[in-house]
């Protein structure tokens, strides 16, 4: 049951991204776009940040996550709510509630809203398909190496267990990392914008099936792996690369 709820939240996030992208135009900076330099910076941070988390004391990690998600939530609400005071109150309310009186699924809601806002912000801010491919491949390699060949992610998961705000959709003993959800969300929104809604929808269904298959595999075929972290990024990136290749071939033909 937990796996089905986690899968449902994962799917809702992706659909939410498509709807958000359809109806919201994010406020762009007066100059510049998200480009390969930002992608390289994100990849560098992805490499450094988790190691930092292992070293930092728990209260600092909580503070770091609180500020990160607060800024993510702010950017997600900014195009929807004009009054900044209301946004601040809303964001502070969500974050403080989760810290002081953690509620079931509230962390998931915070992660989902942040992912929706950030993914649309990035794609609407000019992130190009080849730059997204670079991000996807870079993160997949990192995830594969760290997840498959080191105990690092398990140690990290253990450390983050007692922290009220966690970068993952967590339902019972099932968790999907926020980075993986964000990656799929970026892929879906990018395909919608740069190709078409049908291709985005097809990829969305495929990615849900991939995640469902992995859940099934972990539950039925290899339950021993369930206690460890499983690298999701490569399995959702490969279909995306196929879709991008397909779109490029179609474009060339036309």
């Amino acid at each position, binding site marked *: 049951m937990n796996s089905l709820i986690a899968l449902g939240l994962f799917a809702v996030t992706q659909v939410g991204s498509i709807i958000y992208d359809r109806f919201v135009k994010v406020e762009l*900076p007066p*100059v*510049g*776009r998200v*480009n390969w*330099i*930002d992608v390289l*910076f994100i990849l560098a941070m992805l490499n450094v940040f988790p190691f930092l988390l292992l070293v930092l004391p728990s209260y600092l990690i909580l503070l770091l996550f609180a500020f990160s998600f607060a800024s993510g939530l702010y950017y997600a609400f900014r195009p929807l709510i004009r009054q900044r005071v209301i946004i601040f109150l809303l964001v502070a309310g969500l974050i403080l509630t989760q810290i002081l009186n953690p509620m079931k699924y509230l962390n998931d809601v915070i992660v989902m809203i942040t992912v929706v806002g950030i993914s649309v912000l990035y794609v609407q801010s*000019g992130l190009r398909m080849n730059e997204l491919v670079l991000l996807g491949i870079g993160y997949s390699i990192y995830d594969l190496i760290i997840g498959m060949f080191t105990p690092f992610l398990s140690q990290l998961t253990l450390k983050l267990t007692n922290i009220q705000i966690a970068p993952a959709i967590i339902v019972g003993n099932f968790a999907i990392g926020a980075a993986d959800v964000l990656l799929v969300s970026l892929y879906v929104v990018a395909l919608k914008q740069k190709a078409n809604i049908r291709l985005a929808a097809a990829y969305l269904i495929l990615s849900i099936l991939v995640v469902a298959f992995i859940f099934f595999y972990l539950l039925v075929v290899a339950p021993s792996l369930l206690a460890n972290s499983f690298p999701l990024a490569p399995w959702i990136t490969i279909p995306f690369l196929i879709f991008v290749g397909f779109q490029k071939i179609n474009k060339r033909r036309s």
Partner: protein
Amino acid sequence: MLEVSFYMAWIAVSRILTGKYPPRAINGLVKVLVDDFHTFKRRKTNFSFAISPDEETQSTINRHMRKRTAKVAFETTVFYHDLLKRENIDVNKLDEDEEFSKVPVTKAADFRGKEEKFVNQKLKNHLLFFTSTGTTAYPPSGIWVSKYEMDFLAAAGAFSYLAQGMILPDDIVQISICSRAALSNWLTIEACRRIGAACYLSGLVDPVESLLDLSKIRKIPGKKEKASVIISYPSYVESLVRTGKEQGYSAEDFGVERIILVGEILTKNAKKRMEDFFNCEVHETYNCSELIPIAGVVCPEGNLHFSGDGQIEVVDLETFEEVAPGEEGLLCVTPFYPIRQGTLLLRYTPGDIVKKIDGCDCGLGGQVTSNICGKYDPVLMKYGINRRSLMEALESAPEVFLPLRASLVDDEDKAVLHICVSAKNDNIVDAIYHELGKLGLKDVELVLHLPDEPFSHYPNRCEMLEYTYHHLRRKGLL
């Protein structure tokens, strides 16, 4: 987005450590703007790499920078070493307003023909490029600029054109500027190269040939079909409009979207005629080679906003002391070292009259004055008018030849107006007197001239025509 932060941090660090803008960082920002154009179709932005401080901060910056500039000028130039020594001015006290006002104003006549006396003698190992200013005066003056200045001006020019939406990557730019204004032409070409726009030097050729250039369909990949931007002088574009109307052209024959005007007064009537004939935007700017990197842009309110890195003063014509807001005076500029480093000038006046104003609400920023009223002219001053007001008035009269050829001279204490008209008749005389009356000019003797009658008048840059074989054949001279 990080890229922009990186370039801005580079600029900030360089400004703090060396006082200079790094041209490579500005080139990087130009690339970002070009990328923005292709990605978002963003045609202009209010983003700037230079700070736009409030009045008080600007005043503090000016005090510090002019002292530094004066020190370098005193140590490295022959002219200012002699001048400041002779006037017994302490360069270390030039941050004080009273001491700075004692520095004699450098007039165009002090500078013209003696440019080398103003050259920074310490710039031995830097390329120095001499550029003529393309002025209407003789001998034409010019300035020596260093390699750094050329690099910076090219980058800053490209950024400015692109940020203000004047030249975009899909444009074809026709440059119709006097070929002697080498720096101006080179900077425009360099700006186009950085932006990725196509450009060609048309020069000040016969308007008939220029119109043919403008109407020509050019199949250049990624660019517009016809020339979409003209950079020229107001009088030359005015002559294009007149010739175009005579030859039966209309806006549909051209693809002009923007006209960028420099070097002369642009009247409201002339601007309207250009906008109507070409069906395009007209941007008025103020550029003077002696004052680079200081340049000005005319805002929608009609005021002149100057880019930073120089002190802008409006001084009295006789005492050379700063005038009160609302009063007219001479525009007096001190371009700051080290942005300006080849030829150093303190309190230089190109002879342009402006009105000092308190500020402008348009939001453009920078130091601001009224638009240029014209060159200093004792005759016009005597009758309480300026060149702009005279031009605005006379251009309103029908059958006045355009671009306006006129001059007001004093003949035995009587004002005589020489003016070129397309036909001599009583109606035109009445119309001109009517317009002069609005200016408060009475008892003016009117001398009418036809277009082919040469007479001494205020010079128009469009008259510095560059001949081509086609032009000579057309005129029967070859």
